[in-house]
């Protein structure tokens, strides 16, 4: 289909079907029925088999006309893409529609108190019973779990195999007695995550994904989608400002819930964008030592920005070669955040002690100072990024592994 044809068909559909007075779910059901909810997906599963370029036309039309699209962001996106890649036909038909309409919220149940950097070391137990899997264990860092209807879960179904081989991947109903969700407060006062306690929770046999013992391969798909950055943030097609009408009001509420865990994320990046203005406002810019530190910060932020642009231009132009963009960018973000917090502190002087709405930049600076430690941990610690860069980009030799035997024999916490 030519891009003009796509545009014509979509505009005709929107003219005929869209009304701001629809409920959000009703409107998304119409999108779904017509294949416009996820045009990149297969035609057999609610999509249109579109190419990236074709799908871009769709997003453009949505953006131009400020039309609400399908629910696509957050953990639900991780679930949808994983089910699409590894699920059974029955799972796809059952779960995908309500993801797209936003009727079902999802969460990710991977990390555990005992396995943070070492995700494959999960020790939540999945026992196969006659007609269900019985799940026992604890998960942590579960964004939005308190709103979720379902979760994607990695648990250990076999303790005698090496650790990557004993894992299975499940779709679990979060609205059951065996699942308890507790908010987890962070040092900056926000509670963006939860702990999830699984006590004799049940998963129907049909809700195993990818087969028993194939959990790691399935989880790898989820993780690679997560790394592409789909786990958070508003979807590109969503209207920037809520317009009038029921569909927009309901969308605004949805986005508020979706984005709530991430309100402090700009602060964990150190807010280098505020440095120059604050230095001028406070007069700190006149101090040569502060100037040096500001210049160092600008070097880092500008180089990181340019480097990311060059990588993306290089990729667009079909360039080859190993481009260590992801891990280097992530490591760079840590360095930037740390240095920005340092410079903010120099600029503030003693008033760096103060927090709350009356303090610098309505409290944003104080929140920054106590949020930056997260950037070098979340989504893979700096240490993990350096391992990745050294091994995968520079090709340096891996260390001998200490965790190759049967999982039950591997030393773990508290043993």
């Amino acid at each position: 289909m030519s891009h003009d044809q796509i545009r014509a068909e979509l505009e005709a559909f929107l003219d005929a079907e869209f009304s701001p007075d629809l409920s959000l779910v009703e409107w998304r059901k119409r999108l779904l029925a017509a294949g416009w909810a996820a045009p990149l997906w297969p035609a057999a599963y609610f999509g249109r088999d579109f190419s990236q370029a074709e799908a871009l036309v769709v997003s453009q039309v949505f953006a131009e006309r400020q039309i609400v699209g399908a629910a696509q962001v957050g953990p639900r996106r991780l679930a949808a893409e994983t089910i699409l890649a590894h699920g059974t036909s029955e799972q796809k038909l059952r779960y995908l529609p309500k993801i797209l309409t936003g009727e079902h919220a999802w969460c990710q149940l991977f990390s555990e108190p005992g396995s943070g950097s070492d995700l494959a070391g999960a020790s939540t137990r999945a026992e196969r019973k006659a007609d269900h899997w019985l799940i026992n264990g604890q998960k942590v860092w579960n964004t939005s779990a308190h709103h979720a209807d379902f979760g994607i879960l990695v648990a250990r179904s076999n303790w005698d195999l090496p650790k990557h081989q004993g894992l299975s991947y499940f779709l679990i109903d979060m609205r059951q007695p065996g699942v308890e969700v507790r908010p987890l407060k962070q040092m900056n006062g926000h509670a963006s995550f939860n702990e999830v306690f699984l006590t004799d929770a049940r998963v129907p046999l049909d809700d195993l994904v990818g087969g028993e013992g194939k959990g790691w391969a399935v989880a790898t798909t989820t993780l690679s989608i997560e790394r592409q950055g789909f786990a958070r943030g508003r979807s590109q097609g969503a209207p920037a400002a809520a317009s009038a009408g029921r569909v927009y009001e309901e969308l605004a509420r949805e986005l508020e819930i979706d984005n709530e865990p991430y309100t402090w994320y700009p602060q964990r990046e150190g807010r280098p964008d505020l440095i120059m203005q604050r230095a001028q406002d406070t007069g700190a810019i006149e101090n040569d030592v502060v100037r040096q530190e500001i210049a160092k910060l600008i070097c880092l932020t500008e180089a990181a920005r340019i480097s990311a642009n060059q990588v993306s231009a290089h990729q667009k132009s079909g360039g080859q070669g190993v481009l260590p963009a992801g891990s280097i960018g992530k490591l760079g973000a840590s360095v930037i955040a740390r240095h920005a917090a340092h410079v903010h502190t120099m600029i503030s002087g003693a008033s760096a002690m103060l927090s709350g709405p009356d303090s610098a930049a309505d409290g944003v600076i104080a929140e920054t100072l106590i949020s930056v430690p997260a950037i070098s941990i979340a989504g893979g610690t700096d240490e993990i990024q350096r391992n990745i860069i050294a091994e995968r980009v520079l090709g340096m030799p891996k260390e001998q592994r200490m965790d190759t035997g049967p999982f039950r024999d591997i030393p773990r916490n508290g043993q």
Partner: protein
Amino acid sequence: MQTVLSEDQEQFKHVVQRFFDTHSTTTAVRKLAETETGFDPLVWAQLSETLGLPGTHLSEQYGGHGFGPVELGIILEEMGRTLYCGPFFSSAVMAGYALELFGDDAAKIERLPQIADGSIRATLILDDLNHPSRVGGLIKATPAGALTGSAPIVLDGCSADVFIIVAQEDSGLGLFALASKAQGVEVAAQDSIDMTRKVARVTLNQAAGTRVGSVSPQDLNRFWDLTSVALAHEMIGGAARLLDETVEYTKGRYQFGRPIGSFQALKHRCADLLMSLEFAKAATHHAGFCLAANAQETIYPSMAKAMAADCFMDMARAAIQLRGGIGFTWENDTHLWFKRAKCDEVLLGAPYQHRARMIDILQEAQDVA
């Protein structure tokens, strides 16, 4: 000059350590952090009456015990280690030293004994706690002693009985005392990053202070040295505690089938942190010995403040990082020290300001010579 603690001082350290280990557990710290005044009057009474800590460094003639910066340092190192919540630094150290150094004899006779025995909790209103050059810039005094102005960061301002105030007079800087309940005084709690040390904004509007002394630049330098070194002790105490606990954590936490403390990157980071701590401790203890020997115009107090502050912040960052996600949670205690480190870093001047002061002092010493 002394280079290590004497036997008596070591014994004193053990007593102090036992006291705060018992009375300043993290459970207690967390509870007090949630209160408005931020301290436990019972513990305050005990440390004042049983141990006599607030008078340690004050002269015997004014009710103190006549010890010096070294003994005070011992107390603060243990307070930093246990994150003691209470008005010791504001009352005994800041207000106590200010009165001792700037006060008239009559004022000292009247007021220092009460600070020394803990029966009165004072605090100091000096400047924005940032740089000695700005002292007196916040509060103005009329010849009649009416005080007007506003100080945004007064330690324990909400719980102090008395404010000791350095105010700008027509010529020079005067020292004033003012009851916190006096007319024309407005005290508003300020949110601080560090919930374990409370701060307040104090606004004075024609408040009637009592003039109790005056402030010379030389005394001010001595004051800055003494308080900076006291604070440096608090910081190395906190940093040492964090290193101990972080190393222990890495020994017991397994990932990839091995304790994370066996990963070389973590080992090397801890080794670097230990070096930084040993250096900061050496600088801080030496600064205490120098002050005790009445050395003037030395670089060591500012050096101690700068090194201890950088060490404490580095340590706090690493303590969180090496714990991974759990280190960033509210539930884990690490952030309590992180926040203290961040506030101590800027209290009484940031590291870069103290480093600049070091070179100023060296050059002045050369000019004199």
